């Protein structure tokens, strides 16, 4: 996903090594030692990925072709039945809609707000560090703690409605109403995570050469023009990267949903990840749960691929 792959510079063969004629005859030449060191260095990481990612994905594919027999506790081969179930599952359309609304809302708000904050905080004025810290601070509060506090504030008699009643507004029961539950979940999560994007955007903005801005200003360009014509194209790689990280993260948001709404009311906040969990661990539908999980994996891969393709189209690289 987050790959900005920089090609490794290969040292010209032999140039880096002492011209050791005798050592060439020994079996453990410098290059063979390098080969061995390379493999040994990556072994722990490679074992981790194979054992905890590749093998489980393979198993998930196998499970998706089977049904979990509750009585024998064994898998029963059913071929494509679980995939056919995807088409007839009456809940799936709502789940997919919730997933799209949730991920889309998170990404759009996160990028817009993160970029807006970064632009505002990319100036020198007294208190700028203070404000940066304020906007970053929710990141320090763990996901579940943050979500609990919002759940508390969003209750019918909680702090938000309490504050609204002071100015004479009778607030809704945010988490129990189908219209507002999703909005509440999205807002609470954007606020929690936007700080990280803000930091990424800030560090990108600091890489934009100020001469370009000054030149444009002398040519009579306004702030908006400068932002959209100069700044935004220059930091577009970061925008793209942030969008990928955010959307993949949003597709995987579980704790937020589980703690704040439990997927409700109805199915209004049941996103795909939560549905996978319910099917697999609450209803013991290992086969169907795995099929749904593979659907999630397909979405993530397609999105990553799409963004990778788009990158060539509109992302500006200085060099």
């Amino acid at each position, binding site marked *: 996903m987050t790959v900005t792959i920089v090609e490794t510079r290969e040292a010209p063969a032999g140039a880096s090594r002492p011209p050791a004629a005798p050592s060439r005859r020994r079996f453990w030449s410098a290059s063979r030692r390098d080969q061995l060191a390379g493999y040994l260095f*990556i072994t*722990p990481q490679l074992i981790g990925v194979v054992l905890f*990612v*590749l093998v*489980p994905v393979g198993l*998930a594919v196998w499970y998706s072709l089977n049904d979990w027999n509750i009585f024998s506790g064994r898998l029963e081969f059913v071929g494509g039945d679980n995939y056919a179930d995807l088409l007839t599952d009456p809940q799936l359309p709502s789940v997919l809609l919730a997933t799209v609304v949730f991920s889309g809302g998170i990404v759009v708000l996160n990028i817009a707000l993160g970029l807006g904050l970064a632009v505002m905080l990319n100036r020198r004025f007294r208190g700028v560090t203070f404000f940066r810290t304020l906007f970053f601070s929710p990141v320090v*509060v*763990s996901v579940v*703690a943050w979500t609990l506090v919002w759940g*508390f504030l969003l209750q019918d008699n909680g702090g938000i409605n309490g504050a609204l009643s002071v100015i004479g507004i009778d607030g809704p029961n945010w988490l129990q109403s189908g219209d507002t539950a999703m909005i509440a979940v999205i807002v609470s999560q954007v606020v929690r995570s936007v700080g990280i994007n803000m930091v990424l955007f800030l560090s990108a903005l600091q890489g934009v050469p100020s001469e370009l801005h000054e030149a444009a200003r002398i040519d009579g360009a306004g702030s908006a023009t400068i932002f959209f014509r100069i700044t935004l194209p220059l930091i577009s790689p970061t925008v793209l990267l942030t969008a990928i990280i955010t959307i993949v993260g949003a597709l995987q948001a579980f704790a937020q949903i589980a703690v704040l709404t439990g997927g409700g009311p109805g199915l209004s906040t049941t996103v795909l990840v939560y549905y996978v969990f319910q099917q697999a661990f609450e209803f013991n539908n290992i086969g169907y749960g795995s099929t749904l999980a593979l659907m999630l994996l397909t979405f993530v891969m397609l999105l990553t691929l799409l963004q990778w393709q788009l990158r060539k189209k509109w992302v500006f690289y200085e060099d």
Partner: protein
Amino acid sequence: MKTDLVSHGQRRAGHVLRRVILIVALSVLAIPFVVPTVWMIASSLKPLNEIFQSPPTIFTDSPTLAAYAEAFTFQPFARQYFNSVYIAVVVTLVTMLVASLAGYAFARIPFRGRNVLFFVVLIGLLVPSEVTIVPLFQMFTQAGLVNTHWPLILVTALAAPCVLATFVMRQFFIALPGELEEAARLDGLGRVGIWWRISMPLAKPALSAVAILTFLASWNLYLEPTVYLTSPELFTLPQALTRYADAYGGEMWNTQLAAATMTVVPMLIVFIIAQKQFVEGLAHSGLKG
């Protein structure tokens, strides 16, 4: 040029006005970022009956630490706290080691199949943990490791968070100049020596970024402990926080908020220690794009 049309004083006044508007806008925007945390801390000091007071108050006249004591007596909170801390520390240290070894090799050691193997490792970033949780649960059941901390440690330290760390380390090591290594090699240092004595000391910013990202990942785990752990004394903090309910299922809000407040402390310590290097680390990692 505009300068001729607008006097210096007017420009200065406009400048000050813009600054004031900026600060007001930032202050208003900051409300949803700051109020929940302040509310969490303030409410944890209130007696339960004051929490839903209308109109709401932020601070109480009679602050009490009773909820903090209750947090420890209602469930084995001290134990759960220790679980989260030691798991996060072990995971972070293992990841730093594994990722800096792999990141170094992928960046600086020429070996056959390097690029292919790097792409294989990168797949670990692409696969959401929810996709692998069911098979992993079955694997750990087979291995007899369900209801232990091993799944939380092994998977976090070696799979997705570690792959991100490996990527960050690789980007950093690629950017290092090669001259130091050449000099060290001429002095007779082997690969391990070069990695540990030359490259690692230079990699502090990247290592801080890795430490923060990994600690955060482990500290926030919720799905995995929910799936793997059933005994309260093995629970981690995110799980424990959701278990504060009285015999009738009623939420013990002040106790829950006191416990939640206490879980912020270790993250805060990690950030204070590593933050100076953090942004620099991101800048070097290529994450900034």
